[in-house]
Structures are given as structure tokens and as C-alpha cells.
């Protein structure tokens, strides 16, 4: 049966509804079969794989910690060797940070963000799948290294020169840098996905101030990832150039400085703590209103506090470097900033307490975990304030006091809230409840074990026990304290094991009805994934708690009385709304199951993994394969021209099926990705000027091999790249006016100019004979022009891609998303070329 294009379907007719459901079911049905099921891209499937993998990483890294605790149970123990111990603590920290905490946030967000927003999926489901496969490949690569005695052993912070010296650091350092860089790329991909999801895929009517708090936190945290990870990627790049090619970025003998790494690492590393902590607070912001059965008090306060925490967290990194001998004035500033971040945290905690105070509390298992987490986190927060005071930190820094502090913060502020979330959201995902009895037993084991394990570490640290020691002398008098810590750690682990047992018993438990906790937020519309489509119709939102506040809401959604109740054309469709006020803008069609993301992740992973083993030709081949797969992905899956310009979206509104420029989700994804890219570039420029500030003579005397690149070639390169940029803009404008052939010519010339610009950039240091292994100055100049040349090369690929799309009829004056998106790339390329070439061309004359 078909519905005439200009009439509304009759939602009162059960036969109409059944036919709609049949079509939705067909369109959204997951792929089946032993292999094909892994080509799924729907957030329900990918989110569950992602979550389970991250949980597996938690268990693995936890076992590493247990081995360490067994070694430290008594003084002068010899259970494991120093070498093994160093691998254990490095991998434990690195895995918990990079393979558990951040991926877990992304996993849970992929799983529940669409539900929170009443959306059917995320805007780029294939990107989520790509992120997952990258995480799996990189994670197994890094974690597996311990079985080959090749795990990184320089600490999770990888300080050079210890980690860069070939004599002291083996292949583990490369596995860390390259394996985790690959995962950082996938983290940024997920961040882009989540930001666009929150900004553009909200249901109609959901203005920013009606968004569930979890979505606010996702937005804040994803933006933080976008700004925090790129400096680390820049650092990784410098690090690997030193490891693989002997470019002396951190070698003090050749003008480098090991402190540059520390700055880049902690500009990432401190926000990272809040990247881990805020999503867990977000879980409370969903759990507490449900079990207080009232709206959360102080919604604007909490949003401001979350944004404030995210902002402040970028101004604290130096408190990890209080002992490096910096001037007291900067220590005072960072000390003050580090203490100040406690204020927004306190606001959030007291907003939760006030909500509980005002409501009636239902003592469920998730709330028990919440209470335990509050008790632990408050202590961790207060010891955090203590170490923010520089004089105290000079004593506590790098001792077990800090080990205690960070575990109070991360287990109280992240792991226990995740268990609260697990008990809370398990029914949403599986339609089964976990056992309250086992949950409570596990909680008390974890709570007692945790405090028994970690509280004594405060004392052993102040009694002089440094961190990262594989054993300690009996003379320190910390043997008893350490034995207590070990017992506590094993009790904690036993508690986690009880939860695992509970999860394993779940399939044999009774199904329960939907929304078992009587929650008020949108995700509980879900019928526990019986239907892959998510919501029966995309609702119109008028409240923060629509299930409580909007009368007849559930029935209206279920009867398809809101938006997109049908899939009459046989496509997976999403509502795209405006960023601020949730006005419907477009019906976007998204990709379905495909092996492309998996193949792209395998090929790109190959680049990183093969480079680790110095197999450069294979890595290059793998890189070309990745490029080919990604182009195929974009050719077949993005900016597809719809069969008609617009469609009825329900409730009498008609929406376009295609958008380009800032109205489209793709434009936003490109813009956000480039913000991250520009941040990494800023990290490199920071490096250039950092060397200038630490050296009286930078650039150094113009000896052979280290005299600057001059101004001529940098200016030629700049002129060519700016010309390419201007021509790309011209192509966008002329294409929109219908002058298609002019636009095509402009794109072709733009590609030539951009490519020539990249080469001219390389010609500067090449012609001047700069030797990057001689001194850090030629090295950083080379690195900057290589950065620009590589970006110019990608720019050429994009310009030629748009040209090919135009020639193939896949880009027209109306359907012109491609040229809009590559113009965004062009803006960023032009800006970074401008900065690079002015700096390398003219700064030496000023300095």
C-alpha cells in the first residue's frame, strides 16, 4: 500500500501503522550471518560491542594491577622482575586511560545518545563503526604486547629521554606511541560524531536548555577531546620523529628539551582526567532525578559547572610539573587554577545532594553505587586540593599519596558511577534487570576493598614511598601498609568478579516491562532493542522530562503520531534540526550495514602497526589501501543525490532531503574535525616558540645544515596555497551559479596550485640544506613544512574528488555538499600555511 505524496497517513488506522512498522523493520533490520553481522553499523550493535570491549580492557588492566599489588605485598619481594613490573604499571595506566576510560565514555555514548535524543541512530553510523574497529585493533595491539615481553615500560607518561633513548627504551615505546596514536585518531572520530549528534540530531522542539544533562556532558567532553588529544598527537609525532629518524626534539644536547614533551603531554593529560570524570557525573545526572522522582535542581548551574570544569581543566596542566623547577610565579598561577576547579565540581555535587534532599529517595542498587562513589570521590577531590598547593605537592608528587589520590578520583568519580550506570541502564539494553542482591554484595566488597586498598597509600606515600618502584626497602617502614593495600585490591577485584557473574547470569533472567524505574527522560521510550529502529516516531519535545510532563506522550510516539513514522522510500532516515532551538531542517539519509568501516580501520591500523616494526614500504601500501577505501566510502556513501528534493516528515511539515553548507551535518563534521587538526598544528607551532623561549640563541648560528629556509621559497609556497584556496572558493561560488565548467576548471587549477604549494614549501629547507638530525631548529622547520605539504596533498585529493564528483554528475549546482566541505578544509589549510610560512620565513629575522 502506498501513501499519496500530498496526504497525511491516517495514524488511527491500525493497518496503516502495521504497514509502516513493517517497512521500518525492513529498513532497520540488522545484517545476519556469521560474518555479515559484523558489518552492522547501527548504534545498538556497535555500542554494545564497544562497551563490552572497553569492559574487557578494564578487566585486563585490573589483572595487571593485581600482579603489581602481589609484588608489592611485602618489602624486597621477587614475584616479578623489575622489567616485568615496569611493563605492568605502564600498561595498567595506559590501558585504563586510553583503552578503558575514554573508549568507555564513547561506547556508552554511542549506545545511548540516540535514545536520549529520540533519534534512530547517530548522524555518521559508519564513522562510529570505524571508531570501534580502530579501537579494537589498536587495543589488542597495545595490550597484547605484554605477552611478548615487548610492552611499553616507560610509564604511561612516556617521558623522554628515558623513552626516546634507543639504549633504554625498546620497541615498547613505539608500540605505545603508534598504537595509541591510532586510538587517539579514533577517539577524535568519535568526538566529531558525538558533537554533531548532540548539535544536529536532537528531536524537534528540544532547545539546548531542554537537552538531557547527559547530552550536555557528552557535548562538553567531546569538545574537550577535540582540544586535548591533538596536542598529544603533535607530541607523538615529535616523539616518533626522534625515535625513528633521530630528529632531536627532546635531546638537550642538540637544542631539544625534554620539558616540551611534558607540556604537550599534560595539556592533554589533565583535561583527560575530566574527560574521564564528567561522563560519570553525567550518569548521576540521569540516575538521581529518577530515584528522587523529581526534576534535577539547578539545571543551569550544572550546565555552567560542566562547561566551566571543561574550560578550567585546560589551564591546570602545570600542576603535574610543579617539581620541574619552574618560576614560582607560574606555580602560583597554576596552583590557584588547580584549586579553582574544585568549585564547579562542588556545585555539581551539591546540586545532586539538593535534588535528593528535595525529593523522596528510592534506595535502588544504582543509588547505592552513587552514594559510595560520592564518599570516595569527595576524599579524592579534597586530596586533589591538597596536591594543588605547590609546597605540599613537592612532597607528595610522584609518591603513593598521588597514587591514592588519583584512584580515589577515578574509581570514585568514574568506575563506581559506571557500575551505577550499568545497573541502571542494563534493563534498557537487555530488557532484564541485574540482581539487586549480587549488586549489593559486589558493592560492599568493592567499597570496603577499595578503601582498605587505597587509603593506606596516602600514608605510605607521605612516609617516603615513591611511585613506580618494583620493590621497596624494609627500612621505610611501609610493609604493613602495603600488605593492607594488597588485601584491599584483591577484595575489590573479587567484587568486580561478582558483577561479572551477575552479568553472565543475565540471559536466564525474566524479561521486564519498559521503563522499569519510572524515569522521565526520552531514552526509556526504547523497547529494549526489540526493534532496531529506536523510536516508533521522532517526538516533539516540550519538557526536560517528557515521559513525566507531556500527557499521552508514550502513546503518541508509539502510534507514530510524531515525525518520520514511516520508511516509505526504503531509507534509514534521521531528523536534522537547528543547533540552538531544535527547529527541523532536513531529513537526512544515513548509511546502513557495510564492511567499509572495518576495512578502513584494518588498512589504517596497518599503517601504524607496520611502522612500529619499521616496515615502511608495507606501511605505505597499507596507507594507500586506506586512502582507497576511504575514497570509496565517500564516493558511495556521502552527499548522495536524493530521488526527490523533499518529503513529508509528519505533523504536516515538509523537509528537504538534502542540505549543504552549515545546514548539513557533513559540513559540521568537517569543521569540527578541522578544529582538532588545527589544535594539533598549534601544538607544533607552540613547539617552535617553546624552543625560542628556552634558548638564548634560537634560531641558532647559521652554520651549514642549520641555516634557516630563507623567505623566498616559503613565500612562493604561501602564494600558491592561497591561490589554491581562492580558486576553491571560486569553484564553490560559480558552481552554485550554474557555471559548472568554470567551477571544474577552477578545481583543476586549484589542485595544481595547492600541490605545487606543498612542494614549494618542502623546497625551502631542501634548498637550504637543512639537516634535521643536527639541531632542533632544522628539525622543527622540516616538520612544519612536512605538515603543510601533507595537508596540501590531502587538499589535492579533495579538490580532485570534488572535480570527479562534478564530472560524474554526483555534484550539481543544487547538490553541492562536496565543494562546501572541501572549502572548509581549504580555510584551515590556508590559515595553517599562512602561519607556518610567515613563522619560518620571517621569524628568524626578528628573533
Amino acid at each position, binding site marked *: 500500500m502506498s501513501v499519496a505524496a500530498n496526504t497525511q497517513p491516517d495514524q488511527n488506522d491500525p493497518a496503516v501503522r502495521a504497514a509502516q512498522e513493517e517497512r521500518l523493520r525492513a529498513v532497520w533490520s540488522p545484517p545476519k550471518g556469521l560474518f555479515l553481522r559484523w558489518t552492522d553499523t547501527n548504534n545498538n550493535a556497535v555500542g554494545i560491542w564497544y562497551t563490552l570491549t572497553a569492559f574487557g580492557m578494564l578487566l585486563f588492566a585490573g589483572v595487571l594491577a593485581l600482579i603489581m599489588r602481589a609484588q608489592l*605485598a*611485602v618489602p624486597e*619481594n621477587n*614475584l*616479578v*622482575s*623489575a622489567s*616485568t613490573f*615496569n611493563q605492568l604499571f605502564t600498561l595498567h595506566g595506559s590501558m585504563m586511560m586510553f583503552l578503558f576510560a575514554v573508549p568507555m565514555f564513547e561506547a556508552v555514548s554511542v549506545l545511548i545518545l540516540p535514545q536520549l535524543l529520540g533519534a534512530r541512530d547517530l548522524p555518521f553510523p559508519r564513522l562510529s563503526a570505524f571508531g570501534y574497529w580502530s579501537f579494537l585493533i589498536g587495543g589488542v595491539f597495545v595490550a597484547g604486547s605484554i*605477552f611478548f615481553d615487548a610492552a611499553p615500560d616507560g610509564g604511561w607518561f612516556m*617521558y623522554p*629521554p*628515558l623513552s626516546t*633513548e634507543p639504549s*633504554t627504551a625498546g620497541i615498547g615505546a613505539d608500540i605505545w606511541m603508534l598504537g595509541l596514536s591510532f586510538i587517539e585518531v579514533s577517539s577524535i572520530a568519535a568526538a566529531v560524531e558525538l558533537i554533531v549528534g548532540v548539535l544536529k540530531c536532537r528531536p524537534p522542539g528540544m532547545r539546548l536548555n531542554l537537552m538531557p544533562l547527559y547530552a550536555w556532558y557528552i557535548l562538553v567532553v567531546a569538545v574537550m577531546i577535540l582540544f586535548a588529544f591533538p596536542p598529544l598527537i603533535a607530541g607523538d609525532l615529535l616523539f616518533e620523529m626522534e625515535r625513528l629518524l633521530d630528529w632531536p626534539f627532546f635531546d*638537550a644536547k642538540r637544542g631539544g*628539551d625534554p*620539558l616540551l614533551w611534558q607540556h604537550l603531554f599534560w595539556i592533554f593529560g589533565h583535561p583527560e582526567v575530566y574527560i574521564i570524570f564528567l561522563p560519570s557525573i553525567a550518569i548521576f545526572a540521569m540516575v538521581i532525578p529518577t530515584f*528522587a522522582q523529581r526534576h534535577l*535542581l539547578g539545571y543551569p*548551574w550544572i550546565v555552567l559547572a560542566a562547561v566551566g570544569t571543561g574550560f578550567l581543566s585546560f589551564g591546570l596542566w602545570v600542576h603535574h610539573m610543579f*617539581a620541574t*623547577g619552574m618560576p*614560582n610565579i607560574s606555580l602560583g598561577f597554576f*596552583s590557584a587554577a588547580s*584549586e579553582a576547579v*574544585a*568549585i564547579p565540581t562542588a*556545585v555539581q*555535587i*551539591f*546540586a545532586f*545532594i*539538593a535534588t*535528593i*534532599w*528535595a525529593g523522596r529517595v528510592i534506595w535502588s542498587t544504582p543509588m547505592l553505587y552513587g*552514594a559510595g562513589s560520592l*564518599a570516595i570521590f*569527595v576524599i579524592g577531590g*579534597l586530596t586533589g*586540593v591538597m596536591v594543588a*598547593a*605547590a*609546597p*605540599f*605537592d613537592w*612532597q607528595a608528587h*610522584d609518591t603513593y599519596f598521588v597514587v591514592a589520590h588519583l584512584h580515589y578520583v577515578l574509581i570514585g568519580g568514574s568506575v563506581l558511577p559506571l557500575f551505577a550506570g550499568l545497573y541502571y541502564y542494563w534493563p534498557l539494553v537487555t530488557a532484564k534487570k541485574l540482581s539487586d542482591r549480587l549488586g549489593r554484595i559486589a558493592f560492599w566488597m568493592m567499597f570496603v576493598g577499595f578503601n582498605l586498598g587505597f587509603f*593506606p597509600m596516602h600514608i605510605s606515600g*607521605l612516609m*617516603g614511598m*615513591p*611511585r*613506580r*618502584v618494583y620493590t621497596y*626497602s624494609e627500612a621505610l617502614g611501609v610493609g604493613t*601498609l602495603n*600488605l593492607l593495600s594488597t*588485601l584491599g585490591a584483591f577484595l575489590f577485584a573479587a567484587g568486580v568478579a561478582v558483577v561479572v557473574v551477575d552479568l553472565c547470569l543475565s540471559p536466564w533472567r525474566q524479561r521486564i516491562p519498559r521503563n522499569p524505574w519510572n524515569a522521565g527522560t526520552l531514552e526509556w521510550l526504547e523497547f529494549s532493542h526489540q526493534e532496531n529502529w529506536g523510536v516508533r516516531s521522532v517526538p516533539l519535545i516540550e519538557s526536560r522530562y517528557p515521559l513525566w510532563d507531556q500527557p499521552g506522550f508514550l502513546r503518541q510516539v508509539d502510534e507514530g503520531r510524531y515525525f518520520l513514522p514511516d520508511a516509505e522510500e526504503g531509507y534509514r532516515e534521521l531528523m536534522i534540526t537547528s543547533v540552538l532551538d531544535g527547529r527541523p531542517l532536513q531529513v537526512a539519509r544515513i548509511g546502513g550495514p557495510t564492511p567499509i568501516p572495518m576495512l578502513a580501520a584494518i588498512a589504517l591500523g596497518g599503517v601504524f602497526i607496520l611502522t612500529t616494526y619499521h616496515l615502511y614500504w608495507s606501511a605505505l601500501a597499507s596507507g594507500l589501501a586506506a586512502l582507497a577505501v576511504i575514497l570509496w566510502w565517500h564516493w558511495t556513501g556521502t552527499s548522495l543525490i536524493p530521488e526527490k528534493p523533499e518529503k513529508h516528515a509528519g505533523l504536516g511539515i515538509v523537509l528537504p532531503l538534502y542540505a549543504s553548507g552549515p545546514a548539513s551535518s557533513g559540513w559540521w563534521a568537517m569543521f569540527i574535525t578541522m578544529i582538532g587538526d588545527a589544535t594539533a598544528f598549534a601544538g607544533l607551532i607552540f613547539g617552535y616558540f617553546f624552543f625560542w623561549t628556552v634558548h638564548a640563541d634560537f634560531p641558532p648560528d647559521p652554520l651549514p645544515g642549520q641555516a634557516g629556509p630563507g623567505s623566498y621559497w616559503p613565500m612562493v609556497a604561501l602564494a600558491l596555497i592561497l591561490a589554491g584556496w581562492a580558486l576553491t572558493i571560486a569553484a564553490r561560488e560559480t558552481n552554485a551559479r550554474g557555471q559548472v565548467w568554470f567551477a571544474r576548471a577552477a578545481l583543476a587549477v586549484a589542485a595544481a596550485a595547492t600541490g605545487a604549494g606543498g612542494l614549494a614549501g618542502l623546497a625551502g629547507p631542501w634548498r637550504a640544506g637543512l639537516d634535521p638530525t643536527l639541531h632542533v631548529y632544522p628539525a622543527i622547520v622540516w616538520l612544519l613544512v612536512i605538515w603543510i605539504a601533507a595537508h596540501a596533498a590531502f587538499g589535492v585529493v579533495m579538490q580532485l574528488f570534488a572535480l570527479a564528483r562534478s564530472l560524474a554528475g554526483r555534484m550539481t549546482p543544487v547538490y553541492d555538499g562536496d565543494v562546501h566541505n572541501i572549502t572548509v578544509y581549504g580555510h584551515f589549510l590556508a590559515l595553517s600555511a599562512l602561519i607556518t610560512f610567515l613563522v619560518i620565513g620571517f621569524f628568524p629575522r626578528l628573533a
Partner: protein
Amino acid sequence: MTDRNPDQPAVFKAISRGLLRLAYGAAVALLGGCTGVQSTFSAFGIEAESTRALTWGMTAAATVITIGVLWLAWHAARTPAGRLDHQGGMRVILWLGAIGPTVLLTALLVSSLPKMRTLPTGADDLRIAVGGEQFWWRVRYLPAGGQSVETANEIRVPVGRTVAFALSSPDVIHSFWIPGLAGKVDMIPGRTNDLVVRATQAGVYRGACAEFCGLSHARMAFDVVAMEPADFDRWLADAARPAAGIDSPGRHLFEEYGCSGCHTIRGHAEDSTIGPDLTHVGSRRSLGAGTLPMTRDALSRFIRNPASVKPGALMPSFKDMPGKDADAISNYLAELR
């Protein structure tokens, strides 16, 4: 994990023994028993004393705040719905969440900032240059107007006088930490960091490397002796003298086995300063940077296989050295007092 030690782990035996000591040990540790050779609680310098006061003050405040917040949460959970209205809730957030912490943190900042001030130093003050090297400490005393004296792995300071340390490293980052004297300062290749201290109490203490620096990071400690000024001056004058004229078989073996290719013994062998200076090694309190007691047996063991004591140590092992040769060298070294 291929290189697991074949020895039986001592964990299980220790657990039962440890359980008995738990109650007693925990009580002692908590009730002021936190003193020890390497403890921030056993302060013997004005910097560490001032930080210890800050520690106790902050701990007391943190305890009160923790109890207060948890009591409030408990109270909030017990209060029936409706007792706290919207306005009351907003007051809780404003006063307890925003204003209260701001006031407390400002107070903390104001009280902790002055403690960051560095002690003033004069041209007459003793300077001690310390280099952190994998995995030992090169120590050079630079008294004002006097002769410089190099030693290793032990630091002596005069009570009541200001001492300025100049801290650096030729290899990787280390961190110089004497908990009883002052906070730690990193030793970073390419930089020299200063640390100014003044000891207040004579005694024997311990310091350690606090920045992870490789395989034997855990084995990089040192003894610290705070002495009365007159004793210190006498000791420094002694330390400045070359080694006494000993003629023992060990002295020849020391040359024969190539030990002097790395170690200096002033007056006996002065070819190289790659390894620790051993001029008065017999008078030091410990061996291998705080790893073993200074005994002849320990010396022999260390000489024949340093890596068994300190994994990753750069000193080559002499596994094939006959026991009697090792003992002879040990006897010689022990006589260098």
C-alpha cells in the same frame, strides 16, 4: 613475562604473618608512628617542617569537610520529599557549592603561597652539585672559597646553615627528594635546578629518586646525614683528602680488573669519572645507592654481579671473578675510609 624469578614468592607466608600485625601496625602507623628514615613526618629541615604543618592543617580541614558532606548527603536522603523547596535547593547549591568552596580555597591559597618562597642564599653558603645518573648520585661539595670535593651516594649537610643544591642530570630525568629536609626537585638533562634548604636537627635520614628513571629506579636512594656544623667541617676536610696509602692485594686487583676504567680513587687511580667516586667508599653508610649495607660481603656480591642487586645497572658484571679476588677488592675498598 618470560623473565619471572624462579624463587618462591614470599606473598602467602607473609599474608598470615601480616594479618597478626595488622591491627597493631595500622594503629601505630596512624597515631604518629609515621616517622621513618625517609618520611615527610620526620622533618629535620625548615622547609619540610613548614610543609608538615600545612599537611596536618589540610588533613584536618579535609576530614571535617568529608564528614560534613557525607552527613549532609545522609540527611538529604532521609528527609521526606517536599521539605526542601526549589528556592531552598538553590540556596544549598549557591552557598555550599559555590561560595563556601571559594572562601575555603582562597584561604588555602593565601596560606600556602608564602610557603613557596625560596630561602635567601649568600655567596658564603655551601653549594652542593648533585647529578642524578642511572642509578646513582654524583655529589660535589663546593664550599665558598674552599676546595671542591667529589663523592657519591651520600649527602651530608651542616645543621643551621643554608645549603644550596644545584641539581642536574646527564642521562634521563631523575628527581632529588629528601622527604625530611624539603620537597623534591627534578633533575632534567640540559637544565640545572636549584633547591635551597636548612637542616634543623642532626641525624641520619634517607633520600630517594622520585621520578621513574628506568629499571633500577627503585634502587636509587641515598643516605643523608645532618651534622653539627663543627663535625661537618671536620668531615668535609677529611673527605677532601686523597685516599690513604694502602698497599693491599685488592688495590692491584682493582687496577687489573679494570675497575679504575670507571672509578676514581683520589691518590690511587684517577683515570676516569664515569662511575661513582670511591675515594672514601668504606666510610659510607650503604652501597649501591642505598641498596645494600656497607659490608665486605655485600661489596663482594655487588662487584661480581651488580645486576642481581640493581637490574639495569651500567656496571659490567664480573661473574667469572674468583671469590678470593672479589674479597680482596672488597677488603681494599672497605679500608678506604
